[in-house]
């Protein structure tokens, strides 16, 4: 069993399993699937000076923080028990593109030359980690959701606003991955 689960999971297995989060959360807790609001709750818990957007009873949303804690531990279990840090079998074209970007360590889930803790001292990596994190946090709250909340939950409900948000996700992502990211990596 463990042996079998330790192999890479194909998309047609993983995708439906992710989709199952939608009915599971609805049946077990009447909750709509979403992860990014946890960032808001963490701010509401930890910040002393709070603008109106962060003044609410975050305890009502502790389920969301329990979910997030589970995600962290789940990933740890995946790595320890199920060989979760295997290198994805990305396409040849992507490998060539990454080599053009001077990413030579195509190993594990993400490049250590960029995301290794000791690599954070390099300006370009700092921009990607700190700048990228900032845009993720700001953007999801401005858009009212992330890939879970809008792309999976919202589109499952055929919600028009979620469709617009997902189009936005790809406008930003394409612009970054095709034009800006190669420039940052060239620094």
């Amino acid at each position: 069993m463990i042996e079998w689960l330790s192999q890479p999971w194909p998309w047609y297995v993983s995708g439906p399993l992710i989709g199952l989060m939608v009915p599971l959360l609805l049946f077990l807790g009447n909750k709509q699937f979403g992860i990014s609001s946890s960032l808001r709750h963490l701010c509401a818990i930890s910040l002393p000076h709070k603008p109106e957007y962060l003044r609410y009873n975050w305890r009502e949303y502790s389920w969301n923080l329990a979910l997030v804690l589970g995600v962290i531990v789940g990933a740890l279990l995946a790595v320890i028990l199920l060989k979760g840090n295997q290198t994805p079998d990305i396409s040849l074209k992507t490998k060539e593109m990454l080599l053009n970007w001077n990413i030579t360590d195509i190993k594990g889930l993400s490049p250590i030359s960029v995301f290794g803790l000791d690599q954070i001292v390099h300006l370009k990596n700092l921009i990607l980690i700190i700048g990228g994190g900032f845009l993720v946090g700001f953007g999801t709250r401005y858009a009212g959701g992330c890939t879970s909340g809008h792309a999976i939950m919202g589109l499952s409900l055929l919600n028009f606003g979620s469709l617009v948000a997902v189009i936005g996700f790809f406008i930003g992502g394409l612009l970054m991955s095709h034009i800006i990211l190669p420039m940052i990596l060239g620094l």
Partner: protein
Amino acid sequence: MKLTKFFIMGLFFGIVLTKAEVVSWFRIQEMFHFQSIHMFGIIGSAIAVGILTTTIIRVFKLKTIKGETIKLEGKPFNKVGNLVGGSIFGLGWAMTGACPGPLYALLGAGYYSFFFAILSAMFGVWVYALLKPKLPH
């Protein structure tokens, strides 16, 4: 305890995100360059399961395990917020290779620099909270 079931669902989600390689920066770049079906297959089939199951819930008026009516109304449409906010998020997604779920998963998977990405994301939320009254939505 009430929160335990959500923690267990999180465990499940964290394992799937990692084994599905959704948390991989390599996979995200591959997706934005349309060089593989992998990520599109995952997102597409997840949505298909979501549409199917929510439709079943709607048609058969299914209840939660506690017998409550299931809430299925979507989020309100924000013309500017959805598009502009979404695009800003997309920029960050392609930079870090991680949306919020994977931010946490990568931390658990041992990519500790994502702790700083999460702190920075919280800072982003705080800046949004400050600017919210002035931003068009």
